[in-house]
Each structure stands twice: as structure tokens, then as C-alpha cells.
């Protein structure tokens, strides 16, 4: 073991399997006698279910059963609970199958179970549902207006909860004394996650043992097991095993407990046959939890010399028709707490109204709350600089939290762990050559071309989360992570992690950490995840937590292993433990390197146990739970250059630079990829992606024909660089990397477009910045 693995760009071990079609996804799991489910979904956004006639469907050859919401309730199936509670929040029942009313287009009202997916789908078309269409409200701003149709009787005004954070009096006072106030309204539009693998579940109940196994596309199998067992289906937790095999992307959408896996599991137990469901792409569009969907009014108070004095934000957040698992946390603790950004803003107050509408539920989507906060702040900072006539870079420098101020307590509850915002900005500007750009921009403007630059000096929070803090804030779960490090008699190691990989590359990065710490070859380490039957209770992967929390648990486990191994080695070497050192995979006695025991020697003895220290148990295995003391706060500077076409409103992204500070990085190549992908998603929100409902609550962007995903040829090569400010929160100094690209890039693009259009007097256009919208804003200018 010469080279350190931590920090090395090692190719992903999982890729040969995945790119040669040898992955094992849920739909690839084939069990004999499997039945297939097809869901009958409401075509209406809001309708009373007068009756459901499954007669014709049941007569179709191959159909085994048809179930309705009423039948599920009668058999004891409970509503799907919410995992994060806000005080005075309304929690209407979310039945896996709608019982009396359908509340969004795609709401499942019945399920057909049949011999084949084709027959199931044929039969689903034969189920006759008598709907009485009811008035619809799809827009969250309209939902809170007087007289809007109520989504749930228990929330007649459609308000799910009201939440606020920050010192209102101090904020009001700062505004009263401000030299200038900048105001802007923002629409942060709705997105659809579109993981490449659609959601799928396969449940297999064993009537002999009473055990049920559920293969499901989840980012957190233990959370799935706990909620489905304890809350929805009433299965003893130890009788339900949840396996999440290879999963093709989640972006948050596979965190949540969805109706389909509950129904499939219940049906398998009812029929004593395996039951499978794989979403059709149309169902993914309609039923995967959507992201974003805010209306915000923001005001920033400024001093005459260009300092931010206060920020006031009022946000309406769309929850959709039902509360998805973590929905309440997104526009609150993952949004309001990030509104300080990278700036010393003495007073901040944010008021959030979460509302129900007749739309698909909204929950975490890559970044989850933080992109909404970052977009708002970074746009406001540019607007403020423009208003004051100060260069946006100068304005940022003036207001940055200095690197000597950490840990830094913000006025919105969180304490930033470490940072050097100026450092990242300087590095980015150096690579970019800002003065040269501005000169060139002047030249291009004279030629009638509109080129602009946008900056985003973002901060985000990840590494969810200190359990005690999360609990105090309403989380119905702890947010630590687990790891079991099992050393086998031959010295090979299996690491069982509670984190889950659905594209992140854990099989590689986690092995790098474990092999490094144990000083053994990476090939000797196997990473196992995604199976409640093998892995200790863990919380899964979201909020960029696998690096800062998941690997920390593995690190702690390896330390326990080394401690015990050292005891065994000392005994074998007939030396005092204090004199034994572990170097290069060998235990030796200080001063006499000739006498040594390899890691394998010690592992073998741990299991043979022929010659062990007194009072030491045989075996070499350790379990660890890492509960972080704080969030971690990655930061950085993203720079985007665009050209806007005056005649068509088209935006071309000419250049993109990202300098991120993610603390210490395990695998730079994998992290580069995360940044590339994140930037693509964030640019895509700014320019292309847009989930749109019409007035009747019909999703009019419900397929790839009209929902625009980013294409490689639309994006420039992303120039990636980093600074490194280790986090003190976890033993490896990691800050987390999975979401920074998405969070940082959207405002960088929007700021660039506005900079390009500034000679025409344009200050703001709401996203997505489609050619049609831009051209409309330019009309007559």
C-alpha cells in the first residue's frame, strides 16, 4: 500500500457492470409466478369518485384481482405518513389509492393485478370509474386566494402551514433605516426529476415464513421498511426485507414512500404471489414527486456604501395535492436557513406559506430548497449591485463573510462550519480573466451582440444532519449513518453501509476510504448497500450526505477494527500494545520492523482464536453510527457566459466555470462528474425544463415531446476547479458534492442573461429563460 487512495481519481468499479448491461435493477429481478400491477389513474385533476365498476376488467382472461381505495382501507391499509412535521401543519390523509376524491391528474384510484403487464394494462382500461369533475386550482398563488376550490376539506383555505424564521423586528428596523431598498418578485418554476430508471417495485410474500421481500427503487431502504411496516401496512418490521439493488438515478425522487410500492406489497401478501410494477414513463412524469414551484417576493435593504443591511422574503410554496414524505422540510429548513448565502446580512426574515393544489406532490429534487434560496439571493445580489451602480464582483466582495469569521452564526439559525468565499472567487476570476471579458463585452456590444456574464457565489448545506437538531425541527427520524466493517478470516473486507448508491459511485469511493484506513488493497474491499437484510439500520442517500456522513461511519468502523487488530497483533508479537505500530498493512514493534504480522495474519487469528489476548472476543467486525455535529457547508464561485440572440431570443451558453470548495475530495474524477451533471441540471432549469399545468390541472408537459431535458450539444464543456477548506464536522473533512452544481448554476445562467440584456434596460425575466419569453421582454426595446 504505497499510494494513498483518498484523493485519487480511480475509475468507477461499478461501471463495467453497468455499461455492459450486467446491472441488476428492480425490473431485472424475475421471480416465478410473478403477477403484474397496472394502476387506474384519474384523468381529472379533481373529481369525486362516484363509483368504480371493475366487472369488465375482472372478466378479462389473465386478470387476478382489481382493488379500489375503499377495499384497501377496509383491509386495514393506512394512509402514507409525513416524515417532517411543522407546527400547526395540516396533514390530510394520503391513501395509497384515492378513496372518495382524486386530487391530481394521475392520482391512482384502482389497481389491476394480472398475469402479464399487457393484460394488466388492457384491464386497467376496462375499469369504469364514474368521475364527477370538480373545480380545480393548480397554481399555488391562486390557491390561497379567497374562493379557490379547496383541495382538502380540513384545509379550506388550502394553507398547509405557515412558517417563519429570523428576527422580524430587527429586519423591519433595518429596512426603515436603509439608504436603498431593492425589490423583486421571483417565480421558481416546477421541475420533473426524470431519473433514467423509472420507479419500480416487486414484492414477494412468503406465506410459509410470513416474511415479505420488497425490491424497490429507493434511496433509503430502511426508511422505506420502517414507514411501510410500522405506518402503512402494519407488517412487523423484522418480517419485511427491503432491497434496493442497482438504481438508475434518483435526484431525490426515490427518497419518498409512494402509493405503488405500498399497494404492490399489500397485494403480494393478499394473493401470496409476487407482484411487480414498473412505471411507464408517462407515470413517471405524472407521479414522481416534482421539485421547486415557489412564488417569492424579496426585498433587500442596502446602505449607501453598498452593504446588505437586511433581507425580507415572502414565499408561497406548492406542496401539490398531498404531503410527500419530506415535503414540509424543503421550503422551510432547507430553504429559509440558507437565505444568508455567502453574505454578512445582519437581519433576515422569511415567511413561508405552504399550500395545497391539484397537482402532483412536490418534494426534494436535487438541491431541495437550497437551489430556490441560492437563486433568490444571487439574483438579489446582482439586482442590488445594479441598483447601486457597483460591479457585481465588487458588491460580493464587500458583503462576503470573511474567512476569519468561521464558524459563522447566520441570522437564519444555521452555523456555517468553515469557508473562504473570497478564495474561491479569486481562483475563479483568475481562470476567467474578468477585466478582459468586460473589455471584450464592450466591443461585442458595439457590434450589436449581447454577451453577458453571470456569477453565483453560492453556499449550500449538506451532510444531513445532526439528529438532535433535526428532531427539534420536526424530523420524524434521526439523520446519522451506519456502517458495519466485517473483516473475513483471509483479511478480505466487506463494508455494509446504510448509504445507498444510485449513481454516486459508492462502490468505488467508499472502498477507497476503507482500503486506505485499513491499509489493504482496494480489491480486497467489497461495498454492500441497499438491503435491509444485510445492512445495519441506516438513513440512505440524499442531501449530499453519503460523503460527509456515510463515509464518516465507515471511517469510524475501520478505526475500531484497527484498535482490536492491534491488540491481537501485540499479543502475537509478544509486545505491549503501545509499542505496536501499523504501517503499510503490517503490525510491527517499534524499533524492530523485522518482526511483524500482516493484516491477514491478524484477521485469521481473530477467527481461529487459538491464540488471543485474554478477555478479547474472537472475530473482527465493527459497527459504527456517525451522527454529525453540524451540517457541512460547501461553497464556491460559478461563472457563466452567454450570448442572447436579439432576433430570436435564443440563449447560447458560451462558457462555464465552476470553482467549488467541497472540503476534502475522495475521488476528483467522480466529483468532477457530479459537478458536470449538476451544472447540466441547473442550466436546464434556467433555460429549458419547465413543468406546466393548464387551468384544469392538466400536466401539459407530460412527456419528452414537450418537457425539455438538457442535451449534451446544448452545453459547453464545464471548466472545473476547486479550493479546499476542510470541514471540521466529520473526521475526513468532507463537505459533500452531489448538489452544488444544481444549486450554483441556475442563478449564474440567469445573471448572465440579465447582464447580456442590461444595455436594453432589462433587469429581470422569470425562468425558464426560453427564447419566446426573452423575445417578448425585448419587444419594443
Amino acid at each position, binding site marked *: 500500500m504505497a499510494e494513498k487512495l483518498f484523493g485519487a481519481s480511480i475509475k468507477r468499479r461499478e461501471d463495467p457492470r453497468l455499461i455492459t448491461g450486467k446491472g441488476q435493477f428492480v425490473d431485472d429481478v424475475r421471480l416465478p409466478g410473478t403477477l403484474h400491477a*397496472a394502476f387506474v389513474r384519474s384523468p381529472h385533476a379533481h373529481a369525486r369518485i362516484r363509483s368504480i365498476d371493475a366487472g369488465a376488467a375482472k372478466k378479462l382472461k389473465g386478470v387476478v384481482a382489481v382493488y379500489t381505495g375503499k377495499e384497501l382501507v377496509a383491509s386495514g391499509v393506512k394512509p402514507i405518513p409525513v416524515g417532517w412535521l411543522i407546527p400547526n401543519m395540516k396533514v390530510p390523509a394520503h391513501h395509497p389509492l384515492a378513496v372518495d376524491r382524486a386530487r391530481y391528474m394521475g392520482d391512482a384510484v384502482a389497481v389491476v393485478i394480472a398475469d402479464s*403487464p*399487457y393484460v*394488466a*394494462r*388492457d384491464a386497467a*382500461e376496462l375499469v369504469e370509474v364514474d368521475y364527477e369533475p370538480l373545480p380545480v386550482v393548480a397554481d399555488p398563488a391562486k390557491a390561497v386566494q379567497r374562493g379557490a376550490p379547496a383541495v382538502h376539506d380540513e384545509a379550506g383555505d388550502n394553507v398547509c402551514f405557515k412558517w417563519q424564521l429570523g428576527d422580524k423586528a430587527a429586519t423591519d428596523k433595518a429596512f426603515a433605516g436603509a439608504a436603498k431598498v431593492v425589490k423583486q418578485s421571483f417565480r421558481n418554476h416546477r421541475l420533473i426529476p426524470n431519473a433514467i430508471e423509472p420507479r419500480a417495485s416487486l414484492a414477494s410474500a412468503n406465506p410459509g415464513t410470513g416474511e415479505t421481500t420488497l425490491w424497490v427503487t429507493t434511496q433509503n431502504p430502511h426508511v422505506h421498511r420502517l414507514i411501510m411496516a410500522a405506518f402503512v401496512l402494519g407488517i412487523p418490521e423484522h418480517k419485511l426485507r427491503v432491497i434496493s439493488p442497482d438504481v438508475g438515478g434518483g435526484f431525490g425522487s426515490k427518497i419518498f414512500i409512494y402509493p405503488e410500492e405500498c399497494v404492490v406489497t399489500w397485494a403480494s401478501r393478499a394473493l401470496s404471489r409476487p407482484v411487480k410494477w414498473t412505471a*411507464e*414513463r*408517462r407515470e413517471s412524469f405524472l407521479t414522481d414527486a416534482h421539485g421547486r414551484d415557489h412564488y417569492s417576493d424579496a426585498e433587500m435593504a442596502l446602505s449607501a456604501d453598498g452593504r446588505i443591511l437586511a433581507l425580507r422574503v415572502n414565499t408561497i410554496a406548492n406542496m401539490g395535492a398531498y404531503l410527500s414524505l419530506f415535503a414540509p422540510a424543503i421550503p422551510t429548513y432547507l430553504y429559509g436557513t440558507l437565505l444568508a448565502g455567502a453574505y454578512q446580512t445582519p437581519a433576515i426574515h422569511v415567511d413561508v406559506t405552504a399550500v395545497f393544489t391539484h397537482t402532483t406532490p412536490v418534494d426534494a429534487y436535487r438541491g431541495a430548497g437550497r437551489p430556490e434560496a441560492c437563486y433568490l439571493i444571487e439574483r438579489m445580489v446582482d439586482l442590488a449591485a445594479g441598483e447601486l451602480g457597483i460591479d457585481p464582483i465588487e458588491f460580493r466582495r464587500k458583503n462576503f463573510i470573511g474567512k476569519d469569521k468561521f464558524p459563522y452564526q447566520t441570522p437564519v439559525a444555521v452555523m456555517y462550519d468553515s469557508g473562504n468565499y473570497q478564495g474561491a472567487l479569486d481562483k475563479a476570476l483568475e481562470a476567467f480573466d474578468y477585466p478582459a471579458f468586460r473589455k471584450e463585452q464592450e466591443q461585442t456590444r458595439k457590434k450589436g451582440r449581447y454577451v453577458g456574464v453571470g456569477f453565483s457565489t453560492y453556499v449550500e448545506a449538506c451532510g444531513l444532519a445532526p439528529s438532535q437538531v433535526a428532531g427539534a425541527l420536526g424530523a420524524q427520524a434521526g439523520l446519522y449513518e451506519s456502517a458495519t466493517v466485517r473483516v473475513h478470516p483471509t483479511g478480505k473486507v466487506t463494508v455494509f453501509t446504510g448509504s445507498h448508491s444510485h449513481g454516486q459511485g459508492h462502490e468505488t469511493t467508499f472502498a477507497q476510504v476503507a482500503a486506505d484506513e485499513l491499509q489493504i488493497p482496494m480489491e480486497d474491499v467489497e461495498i454492500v448497500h441497499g438491503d435491509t437484510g444485510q445492512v445495519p439500520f441506516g438513513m440512505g442517500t440524499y442531501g449530499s450526505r453519503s460523503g460527509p456522513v456515510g463515509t464518516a461511519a465507515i471511517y469510524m468502523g475501520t478505526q475500531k477494527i484497527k484498535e482490536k487488530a492491534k491488540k491481537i497483533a501485540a499479543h502475537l508479537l509478544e509486545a505491549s500494545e503501545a509499542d505496536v505500530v501499523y504501517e503499510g498493512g503490517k503490525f510491527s514493534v517499534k524499533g524492530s520492523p523485522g518482526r511483524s504480522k500482516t493484516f491477514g495474519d491478524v484477521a485469521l487469528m481473530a477467527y481461529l482464536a487459538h491464540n488471543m489476548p485474554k478477555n478479547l472476543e474472537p472475530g473482527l467486525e465493527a459497527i459504527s453510527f456517525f451522527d454529525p455535529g453540524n451540517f457541512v457547508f460547501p461553497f464556491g464561485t460559478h461563472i457563466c457566459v452567454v450570448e442572447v440572440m436579439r*432576433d*430570436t*431570443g*435564443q440563449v447560447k451558453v458560451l462558457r462555464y466555470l465552476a470553482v467549488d470548495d467541497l472540503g476534502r475530495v475522495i475521488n476528483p474524477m467522480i466529483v468532477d462528474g457530479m459537478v458536470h451533471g449538476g451544472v447540466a441540471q441547473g442550466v436546464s432549469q434556467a433555460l*429549458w425544463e*419547465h413543468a*406546466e399545468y393548464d387551468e384544469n390541472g392538466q400536466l*401539459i*408537459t407530460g*412527456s*419528452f*415531446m*414537450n*418537457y*425539455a*431535458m438538457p*442535451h449534451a450539444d*446544448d452545453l459547453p464543456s464545464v471548466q472545473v476547479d476547486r479550493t479546499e477548506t476542510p470541514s471540521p464536522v466529520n473526521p475526513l473533512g468532507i463537505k459533500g458534492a452531489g448538489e452544488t452544481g444544481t444549486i450554483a448554476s441556475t442563478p449564474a445562467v440567469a445573471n448572465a442573461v440579465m447582464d447580456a440584456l442590461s444595455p436594453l434596460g432589462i433587469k429581470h425575466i422569470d425562468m425558464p429563460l*426560453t*427564447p*419566446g*419569453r426573452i*423575445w*417578448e421582454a425585448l*419587444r419594443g426595446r
Partner: protein
Amino acid sequence: MYSAPFEYHAPATLAEAIALLGRYGDEAKVLAGSQSLVPLMKLRLAQPAHLVDLRKIEGLTGVREAQGTLFIGALTTHAAVAASELVRAKLPMAAEAANLIGDAQVRNLGTIGGSLAHADPAADWPAVLTALDASVVVAGPRGEKTVKLEQLIVGPLTTALEPGELLTQIRIPLPPARTAGAYEKLPNPASRFAIVGVAAEVSLDAKGVVQWSRIALTGLGSKVTRAGYVEKALQGKPADAAAVKAASARAAEGLELRPDLIGSAAYKAQLASVYTERAVLRASARARER
């Protein structure tokens, strides 16, 4: 995505195919490249009881030239058209348009005849082949006939093909000297169909004056439309920047433009002008060199 049940037929001859279509009438659909019909079937928006696959029939693919005409088999893929040396040399507009259709997968499977028979109002081929004054050969129970492209497409997803009729070949008259075309397209960022596509074929005299032009727009209306005003305005004018700009300003005249997610009617009119101008300028530049 599970289609409704259907019976699959793969006739070996054209006659067999026509007979099958005659037998099953409205219950049958023709399968060419599968790029439009199969997605509709998977969404169950199309539920034909019988599918007649033409891909086993010989002689429906390939490009050849004879007597001043280019013949393209209806089942020739977009990729094959784009790659054809003959097309690239004689009709560069057709090659460049073929390369802008959908994505690589669509171009490798989708066919020129399938696209015409499907008649999507935002498809590229109808505009290009209208500008090129192409005809199609239609085979049916009463034998073969030739139909001008402008008569073939009558509305959105609607052609003049009678039940039992099949499109077998596209015929394009090769242009005279100093005549060439260009295709300019703004693709929908999601579907890659044309938000607007303008195909312009321009014929110049020795002095660079426009003798005639054929300009066809796709994407903006319910079917491909000739930019009649522009064609008239250009006639007899030098194909210079000012004249082309002036003529293109009214490219959308006669089109019923509808606002949608892409933009307002005014924006669409603007796109029609901008893309017409670009297409005509590029076609003229090509024409000067031919």
C-alpha cells in the same frame, strides 16, 4: 409502456401489403420506421388491430438518379438520405435537413416515406420536399399514381392517401443551373421537431436576380405552408441582404399562428421572418455557385 393487443403482418411483396390493407381497412396501420407510430401505440393513443410492416418488402429503399430526377425509396432512412453522396451533391438542402431530424436513433430507423405519411405538422420533410417540388408515388388496389407533395398533405396528421394505399417512392426533379436550396430550423428543445423550419429553393439568373423561389414553412401551422408573399416579393429582385430581409418580413402571412408554450403569435411571426431570411440567403449563396 404497453401497447394494446395487435396482430403483426410482415408481407413480402407490395401486392400482399396492399391486399392486407384492403382486408383490414381502418383496423390496420402501416409500419415503416416505427418512430412515430410505435410511441403512439405505447401511449395507447393509437390502437390498431393490425400492423402491416413494410420492411420485408424489397425495393423500397435507396436513392438513384435517372432522367433528371432523384428517386428515393419510401423506406429509406433519414440517415441514409443524409449520407447519400447523390443527395449531398445534387440536393444539399435535403441532406442537411435529414441530418437535423430528431436524434441519431430516430434518423437511423425513421424513414422519409413514413414521415410524409404520418404528416406531423412540425416534421421537416414536408417543407423540404415542397420547396423541391417533389412528388410521391402511391401504390394502391387500383395501381400506381403520382401525387404532388402539396396535394399529399392536407392537414395535421392527415394525407390524401386513400384506404389501402401506400407511399412507395419520392421523386424530386433535379434543379437547373444556378438553383439551390437551404433548410433552416429551430428545433423544439424537447422533441427536436421544428418550432419553425424553413426550406427555401432559389433560382437565380446570371446577374444574381431571383427568377423564382419556392419557400415552405413547417412547424408554425397545421400543415406545411408556402410563403407565397415572400416568393412573389423576391421574384425579379437581386438576392441581396436588403431585398431578402424586406421580403422575409412577411413570411408568416397567411399562417394562423397560435400562442403556446413556445411563445406568442407575434414571436412565431418573428421566427418565420428570421428563419426565412436565413434560408433564402443561404440558398441564394449556394445557387450562385451552381
